[in-house]
């Protein structure tokens, strides 16, 4: 009887696999050895180079002569020390770090890397330039905002947020409507920190942009930055046909807290979208006006739980009149209204949450 398995190809396969496993183990050991050598070298050189860098950045103007004779390995190490210092240090010392970075030719190299054919290299160069805070990098970074790669655009946005002047930041506003959500978010984050400098540009973008996503982002920013001049714009956008624009507008208006929003908020408690009603109720909790009590009491019977919850929370914020309304709600025949009233009477203050 013939054997069912032909042995020769199997034997050959075993040999091949054994060779691959052996090579893999060898590679692993070589990789470990190499990495141990470079880590050891780094550990030996880093303290001395750090001392040297600290010594130089304490004085201005910067004297980079001490770094002239460094090996390539040491230069790489100095660059990484400077970048990690730049992450934590601002002000005069930050400027000295940038000066040293420039004097050692790293900045010139980063600007060259910004034109690399590899997107990952361009993104990394943009991020490093942002980290090191160099004003001369702004024009090339602004050009990079039109890069075709998302990673590069978002790194450039972040970098401009770190170093940018008001005019450079204005250039970011148009990217609120960037086709990539990641880039648009990065712009929002940058402008949430520094957007006050370009409040007018944000306002005109919010009112004039044809990009829905851009408008949404700009309205959200108006709320985060509490741009009071946006009241008229928000009153208009609260009546927008797009429910998401209405939701963002109500949130922004609540953050600004202009008493002129009180009546529109009362009307929005009857909006056909629960998200809008919910935000209106939440907004009213920030005003704490007794005039809202009858409207809020009516909303306690809304069909959506979160609207009822925020209405009850708003009542708890109104004071005596609100508490009275909650006590009445405690007698309500609907057990969920009773529970809510009991909880808020016991707790007495709002629970921060977004549905």
């Amino acid at each position, binding site marked *: 009887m013939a054997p069912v398995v032909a042995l020769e190809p199997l034997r050959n396969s075993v040999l091949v696999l054994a060779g691959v496993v052996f090579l*893999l183990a060898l590679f692993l050991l070589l990789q470990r050895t190499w990495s141990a050598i470079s880590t050891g070298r780094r550990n030996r050189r880093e303290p001395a180079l750090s001392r040297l860098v600290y010594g130089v950045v304490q004085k201005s103007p910067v004297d980079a002569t001490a770094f002239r004779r460094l090996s390539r390995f040491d230069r790489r190490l100095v660059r990484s020390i400077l970048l990690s210092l730049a992450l934590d240090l601002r002000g005069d010392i930050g400027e000295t770090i940038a000066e040293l970075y420039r004097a050692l030719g790293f900045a010139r190299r980063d600007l060259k890397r910004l034109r690399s054919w590899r997107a990952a290299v361009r993104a990394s160069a943009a991020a490093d330039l942002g980290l090191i805070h160099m004003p001369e990098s702004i024009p090339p970074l602004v050009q990079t905002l039109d890069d075709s790669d998302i990673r590069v655009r978002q790194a450039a946005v972040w970098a401009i947020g770190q170093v940018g002047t008001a005019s450079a930041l204005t250039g970011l506003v148009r990217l609120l409507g960037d086709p990539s959500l990641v880039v648009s*978010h990065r712009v*929002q984050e940058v402008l949430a920190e520094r957007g006050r400098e370009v409040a007018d540009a944000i306002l005109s973008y919010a009112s004039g942009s044809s990009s829905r996503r851009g408008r949404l982002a700009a309205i959200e920013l108006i709320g985060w930055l509490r741009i009071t001049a946006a009241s008229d714009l928000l009153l208009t956008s609260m009546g927008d046909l797009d429910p998401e624009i209405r939701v963002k507008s109500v949130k922004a208006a609540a953050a600004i807290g202009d008493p002129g929003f009180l009546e529109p908020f009362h009307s929005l408690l009857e909006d056909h979208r629960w998200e809008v009603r919910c935000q209106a109720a939440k907004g009213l909790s920030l005003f704490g006006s007794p005039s809202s009590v009858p409207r809020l009491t009516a909303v306690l019977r809304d069909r959506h739980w*979160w609207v009822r919850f925020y209405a009850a929370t708003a009542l708890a914020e109104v004071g005596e009149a609100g508490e009275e309304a909650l006590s009445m709600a405690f007698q309500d025949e609907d057990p969920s209204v009773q529970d809510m009233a009991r909880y808020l009477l016991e707790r007495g203050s709002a629970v*921060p949450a977004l549905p």
Partner: protein
Amino acid sequence: MIWPWVETGLAWYTAFILVFFFAINTYYLALTVAGFWRTIRVAREVRRPDQRRLLRSPLTPPISVLAPAFNEEANVVENVRSLLMLDYPLFEVILINDGSRDRTLGRLVDAFDLRRSARCFERVLPCKNIRGIYDSPIYPNLVVVDKDNGGKADALNAGLNLSLYPLFCAIDADSILESDALLRLVRPFVDAPGVTIAAGGVVRVANGCEIHGGRVHRVQLPRRALPLIQIVEYLRAFLFGRMGWSTGNSLLVISGAFGLFEKRAAVQAGGYATDSVGEDMELVVRMHRKRREMHQPYSIGFVPDPICWTEVPVTFRVLRRQRTRWQRGLIDTLIRHRAMIGRPRFGTVGMVSLPGFVMFEMLSPLVELSGYILMPVLWALGLLSLSGAFVFFVLALMYTVLVSALAVLLEDIAFRRYPRTWDLCRLLLGALMENFGFRQITVWWRVRAFWEYLRGDLSWGAMERRGVRAQ
């Protein structure tokens, strides 16, 4: 003398086993390599200032951390403390005491000065009776829910009902999260809100590590062989395997020990299935199904750097319970969602990952066991020589070791969590050792799981913890 048709049948089956063995190892190899490339790509995209940016960003969504606990009195206080110390802008910790019979609740009440609360909530998902809700005047973001025992899925549903925030992170109460784990895991949700509906993080083995105050201070390998082998397994299957699957948005499993989900998407899918022991995988597959049926764009991802440490079984008894439960959960989920298999409308999930799971995860123990039985039969019938059997065994061993060693190597390149060279050698030894006994016994348990599944066994089996914190 045997009948010719038996001989032909045996020859064909042997050929099938050979092809299957080659295919399954190639499948793991491909997953490992794909997972590695994706890991490197993600690692390059994440820069140091990213954590600070996410901490400050108004776009970082708040998270409800749900931690079901059953008879966890030994570690529960320290676990909750470690959760409360997470670096994240806004989060709440909801610990669900799932009808523990020990002093789990009592210890929490004493440690956090818990007071009964009238907290109201919307019951969006059915769950067992909630006996009481407690909050702490010391930690306003801590909520403890005391409920009747209903299993992990039921406890998570109760937690979901009480959660206030748009994202929830499901963890095991005995797991240790690294302090920035949530910040790292939330990244896909910040980058693509509304599109990312779930993301899994890496679960690593805590046995052997130096742990104080609910934090892993020094990563070390355990002395015992059983957890050591599981580390290699976790690297191969849970790190690179899942990373590989996430490449084509076809990840089917997010570990119950550490996963972040969009609450609305999970509720829309119906929450956790209380009648399944593989509730974590089942929810993910159901979320895929729901989104694909509704033609809504979505993404379910895997992030390689947020880390959750967990204790793995150190005895065969507990390991058996765990492995049979995993296999029963897998069988159950694949049978429940069999309508998705091979259907182009479910995209890569229906056409690639589900068939792959059926073939290489669900049925593989049956094929492997039949191979173990077949070899002596063939030998007894004179159809296979001893040297033939030996060559086949060595071939199988080599290929399996190759895949495991590659996973160890790639972990070393991408993360280097085990910095000592001796640890690396031990991991390679573990990759070899798993083929002598461990693999065969787990195959047997997984085959037994079919029988248990057919009997309708839905039990979880207790996971006995030795308490890694004491180490």
